[in-house]
């Protein structure tokens, strides 16, 4: 891709994001905001899974931690700007904890552990009514007010979220472009070789989970003022699967994959809404079809088309796993 093309596309995207909600009804602006928020969650999971190769079915539980922390604090009178960082810190700590199983097991086992973790978090949220309101949830969280700029209305809140998303993306870009990004990719492709080159794979694995979780927490911290009503059911395993789907559909390991994936996963049900009760059936069937034909995700489609017209050197098929010890 030409040097100047990429920045131009980025500016274009940003401009689109700024003008998209103008003149639209509240519901559309709400959906667009939702898209941004889930892009953040998917971005975090993309780091953990796409770049570092660690599977996690627990991203929704970090959204929950971020959401509930923010909710409880803002309901107690704290400003969102002070409540949110606390949620992030908590997510970082818990994320580190979740990284420990990843040091012991990989692949499907890790998927189960993270799935179990997500379910446990759900159970705690549902059972500890005194703290979380139980199944009734928490309601009435205020939208942040910045003096001259109040996010009470849908449109200002969208721009507020857009600002946060841009900052979060820049931070992620910094991480991924740095030597850390290279180390994450090494962990994904060949952890034994990475270790033998001085990469502290233990630390990197824990960091992959911790950072990914922080992004989940940030998304949760934004969901709270968006929906202004949260309950445990919004953060179950099914939602972790949705976020995983966003990463995979968009293209795992590609920077813009999460945005594309979140867009598709959020927009598709909206477009299928006219089918009433059948939309989940059609939706899940489409997912399966997509996975059969384009498993590397939608961003991969561009690459695949290019391959057809201009075949390049291909990664050998036997390079699937990393170095093994004798």
């Amino acid at each position, binding site marked *: 891709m030409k040097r100047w093309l990429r920045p131009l596309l980025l500016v274009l995207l940003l401009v689109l994001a700024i003008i998209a909600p103008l003149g639209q009804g509240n519901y559309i602006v709400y959906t667009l905001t939702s898209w941004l928020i889930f892009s953040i969650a998917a971005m975090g999971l993309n780091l953990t*899974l796409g770049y570092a190769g660690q599977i996690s079915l627990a991203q929704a539980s970090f959204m929950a931690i971020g959401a509930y922390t923010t909710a409880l604090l803002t309901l107690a009178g704290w400003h969102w700007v002070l409540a949110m960082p606390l949620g992030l810190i908590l997510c970082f700590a818990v994320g580190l904890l979740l990284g420990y199983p990843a040091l012991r*097991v990989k692949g499907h*086992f890790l998927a189960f552990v993270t799935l*179990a973790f997500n379910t446990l978090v759900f*159970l705690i949220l549902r*059972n500890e009514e005194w703290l979380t309101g139980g199944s009734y949830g928490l309601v009435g969280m205020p939208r942040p007010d910045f003096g001259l700029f109040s996010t009470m209305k849908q449109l200002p809140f969208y721009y507020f979220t857009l600002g946060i998303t841009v900052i979060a993306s820049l931070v992620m870009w910094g991480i991924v472009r740095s030597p850390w990004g290279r180390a994450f990719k090494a962990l994904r492709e060949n952890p034994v070789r990475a270790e033998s080159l001085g990469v502290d794979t233990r630390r990197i694995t824990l960091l992959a989970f911790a950072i990914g979780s922080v992004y989940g927490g940030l998304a949760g911290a934004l969901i709270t003022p968006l929906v202004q009503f949260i309950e445990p059911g919004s953060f179950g395993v099914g939602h972790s699967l949705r976020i995983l789907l966003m990463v995979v559909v968009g293209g795992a390991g590609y920077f813009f994959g999460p945005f594309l994936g979140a867009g598709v996963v959020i927009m598709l049900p909206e477009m299928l809404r006219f089918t009433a*009760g059948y939309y989940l*059936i059609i939706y899940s069937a489409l997912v*399966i079809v997509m996975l059969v034909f384009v*498993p590397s995700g939608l961003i991969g489609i561009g690459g695949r088309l290019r391959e057809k017209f201009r075949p390049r050197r291909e990664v050998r098929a036997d390079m699937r796993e990393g170095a093994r010890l004798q």
Partner: protein
Amino acid sequence: MSQLLQVLLSGLATGSIYALVAIGFTLVWQAAQTVNFAQGEFVMLPAFFVLVAMGYFGLPFLPALLVGLVLSVLVLGVLFKKLIAEPILPHGGITLIIATMALGIFLKESVKEFYSAEAQPFPSIFPNDPIDIFGAVVSLQDLFNLAISLGVVVVLTLFLNRTRTGRCMQATAQNPAVAEILGVDVKRMILYTFLINAALAALASFLITPVYLAKFSNGETLGLIAFIAAIVGGFNQIRGALVGGLLIGVLDNLTATYVTAQYRAALPLVLLIVIIMLRPQGLMGTSEGRSV
């Protein structure tokens, strides 16, 4: 004391059904590297095949069961393998996880939309009369379930160890490449694995649905429990899934009765995490090699 016995026996009965589901799950994972996240829905669905056979085609119960079994083997065995597992397997584990999870949603929502969202009664193969064992009141159904499940496990173990086909399946699970060189029809062995899993799921469905009633959401809990039973028990032997299933069944009942009802679901989860962390090969597994 008699209450404890009651809880234990009923836990064993439910656990033995979990074991069937766990065994099928283990088989397919071992022999075909397919982790089926829709396993719970595989147990939910066959009951509905039977209900449709009875309701819309007017079949009596037992023939309907047969129809249900055959349909399950076809749809959840052959079709599942050909349409989903086979095409997606080369693309890696994560894709398969998502695909089978999506399949689970597809099956669940299809039943909800095309049949009913309400729980449906399901006839039991065995009478539900209570009988008295040392003061504990246990239902005959529970005892029969336990007997049938254990019986099936014995037959399956004999099949895998004593018959030629069974040993070929074991070879396929341990090392497909070598098995192929030795002349084993690996593709067929893998197909058999899927068929056996479908049959086990169907049997589990017929045994457990009378208790839970047929509902589209049954798969959620059953699936997770099956995974946990398989992993806790250990992957290297069928015995592992059996032990895992029984253990979970009993522990679940004990927890609910004596400790806490709210967090009863937490115990298997915590057990899963602990086992995976401390002893990933499971309680019964050995650290090297895989076997069926």
